[in-house]
């Protein structure tokens, strides 16, 4: 009971808990959840959000470190662009391997995650290491590269607002535009899309993959500009993997990704508090999270199976 109370207090117990812990943790999960939903909706099993996030973080950190003399708005926009381009570029490797060599993206994106992880390691011990060359981390970004906060006195930053806008934009795109409809139908039935819809499936899948990577790259830029203000090993505690759970819990609906990301963000924030205040290890929360995801997937499949049986009778 104490543990649950501590969890709740840590996540929603105060303005600080909400605006500086929960929603800050939810920000990368929101963006990455949208990235995963984008890929999954188009039938791409992109497990590489983590690597694409790191690629975006590296590019944004490099740009941010060079921006000391620039106006703040330019520095922030340049970081966003760098993150998006790097994330899309990282995804392009896996997308190209799939399109031209038939390599399963599940494998390639996981491999690229490790590659990105080690690239960060090398950068913070090499080209991007802080000037004293003692710690494996970059210098702190100049003030102009710090992303604006949304509520004075709290850590919640621009990245969360971008995430909300993006959720809305993706929903509108999927529901109301021709491009979005194509992205959906190649995921739901590639053969029908090609034969009945005359959709260029390869090109559409490529576009979805790049979009997914771009959003994950933006998440990387958002972490560097809004939270860490620098680059170091372990900049992401596996957000890219949690994001898969976020997207699945939301059933790949971009609107539902928002509460889903907040839920997981709250669990992460609350877990830290629970460990501190009640002495319950944070891994307990991870067990709960995994349980929730499995339950959701099982429920979904069960419903689908029932619906299919019903459909045959009808």
């Amino acid at each position, binding site marked *: 009971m104490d543990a649950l109370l501590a969890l709740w207090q840590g996540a929603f117990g105060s303005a600080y808990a909400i605006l500086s812990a929960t929603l800050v943790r939810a920000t990368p999960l929101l963006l990455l959840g949208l990235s995963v939903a984008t890929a999954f909706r188009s039938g791409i099993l992109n497990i590489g959000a983590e690597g694409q996030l790191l690629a975006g973080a590296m590019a944004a950190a490099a740009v941010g470190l060079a921006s000391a003399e620039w106006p703040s708005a330019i520095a922030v926009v340049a970081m966003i662009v760098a993150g998006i381009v790097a994330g899309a570029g990282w995804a392009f490797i896996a997308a190209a391997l799939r399109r031209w060599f038939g390599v399963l993206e599940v494998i390639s994106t996981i491999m690229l995650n490790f590659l990105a992880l080690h690239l960060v390691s090398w950068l913070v011990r090499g080209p991007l290491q802080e000037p004293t060359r003692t710690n494996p981390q970059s210098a702190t970004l100049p003030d102009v590269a710090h992303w604006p906060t949304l509520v004075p006195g709290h850590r919640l930053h621009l990245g969360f607002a971008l995430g909300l806008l993006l959720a809305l934009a993706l929903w509108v795109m999927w529901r*109301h*535009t*021709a*491009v979005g*409809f*194509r992205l959906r*139908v190649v995921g*739901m*039935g590639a*053969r*029908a*899309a090609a*034969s*009945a*819809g*005359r*959709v*260029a499936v390869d090109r559409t899948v490529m576009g979805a993959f790049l979009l997914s990577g771009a959003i994950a790259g933006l998440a990387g830029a958002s972490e560097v500009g809004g939270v860490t203000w620098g680059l170091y090993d372990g900049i992401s505690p596996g957000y890219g993997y949690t994001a898969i759970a976020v997207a699945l819990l939301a059933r790949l609906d971009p609107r539902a990704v928002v509460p889903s990301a907040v839920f997981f963000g709250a669990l992460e924030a609350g877990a830290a508090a629970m460990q501190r205040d009640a002495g319950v290890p944070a891994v307990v929360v991870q067990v709960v999270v995994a349980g929730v995801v499995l339950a959701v997937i099982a429920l979904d499949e069960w419903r689908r199976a029932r619906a*299919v049986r019903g*459909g045959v009778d*009808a």
Partner: protein
Amino acid sequence: MTPHEALTLDGITHTFGGHRALDDATCMVARGTIHALLGENGAGKTTLMRIAFGMLRPDAGTIRIDGAQVTLRSSADAITRGIGMVHQHFMLVPAMTVAENVALGTPGPLDLHAVRDRIRAIGAATGLVVDPDARVRDLPVSAQQRVEIVKALARDARTLILDEPTAVLTPEQGDELLQWTRRFADNGGSVVLITHKLREARRHADEITVLRRGRVTRHAMTGALDDAAIVEAITGGQRLDGDVAPRATPHPLRHTATSNVGTEVVLALDGTTVHDARGLTRLHPTTLAVRRGEILGVIGVEGAGQRELLRLLAGRLAPTAGRATIPAEVGFVPEDRLHDAVIPELTLTENLALAEAGRAHGWLRWSDVADRTAALLTADDVRGGGVDVQMRTLSGGNQQKFVLGRERRRASEALIVENPTRGLDLQATARILEGIRAAAADAAVVFHSTDLEEVLRVATRVVACFDGRVREVPPPADPDDRTPYGRVLLGAE
């Protein structure tokens, strides 16, 4: 109970969810002979042999192997009793070597050395030489087929069931294989040859059993049968079958409706060929023209080339060589409705929009699409719910009416329809055929069905596919005569 019977299926009945796939079918394969099993697609040939191989349990009837009655619980059971089957789609693990594939499923400890020796010994004894260390995926299809046979022989199969073995082979390879089966039979083996190539059966089999709609319609020694008799048994004789229920359309329209055939050529092929991914020729050079107002009926057994022909004309397949001249948009009703025509989880409205997905841009106006969907449902009598229900909740007949309606509206000039009435009830079938006829009022129509009667009822002109070649079939003098069609379908001269 003759002493030399190798495999006997006696009075076999088998029902798939209400559909009687086999009805009191009997087939006796004698030791030392090749026995051909003939019939159209869906006549029950493969089902019967799957029962012989223990993959299916019959609802009624008995199986005897070497004269002794047996119950086959699985294919492992059948293998133990000396039955081997080579399926149309090979059951091999492509990433494994030949020896590993042969060893797979053999009981007892794994001894690859012994397996390799066994493969070499079989090669020396039978002429079926394969390299035991080659990887299956690196082998050409003909060699993969050899591996399948070696696999059966390695388990001491004395009766081999070959399902359409020459479908994947070049004619020379096919001949070679069939000559091998003769030697195998001469050495005391037995072979069941499932085929729909008449010439193959006539030239290589000792006995022929013909199935039609799950029943044995003919059984005789090959010498006692001529082409005409076999064709009659396969297609159901000269007249409409007694067991074919009367169609909702009372008066057949065979080879008529020439009055509204225009002069304008809408679809044209000029020396067009199609090769598949393995380089095998699926369609030999074909030249063909379809005019507005015409319904070109296409007949052909599975794999004869009509699939490629239809897709060429629909613009869904690019020719390997030659030229296809077709309008920018061609309506296409593909055979595999749920995979190629619609997305079952989307609503009817969304499935209508699917037809425009490739060329749409900007905003989608859903209310407009919904209005057009509602209009289609009314005009084409699609029942089962409104525009917002999921496609999968509709019955097959209503799904097909929807697809046909959508494709007719997509393109006014040309419509390609592939086997549209499979699994539909009589009323839905009648509606679909009506729709196809109506489409010909202002379009060039190409129509393929595995049901010959259906094609003859609707088409104004008929071509037949056999072995990748397309031949025109002139209307016979007696409109009820089915023999000319059966002959070209089965490749009889």
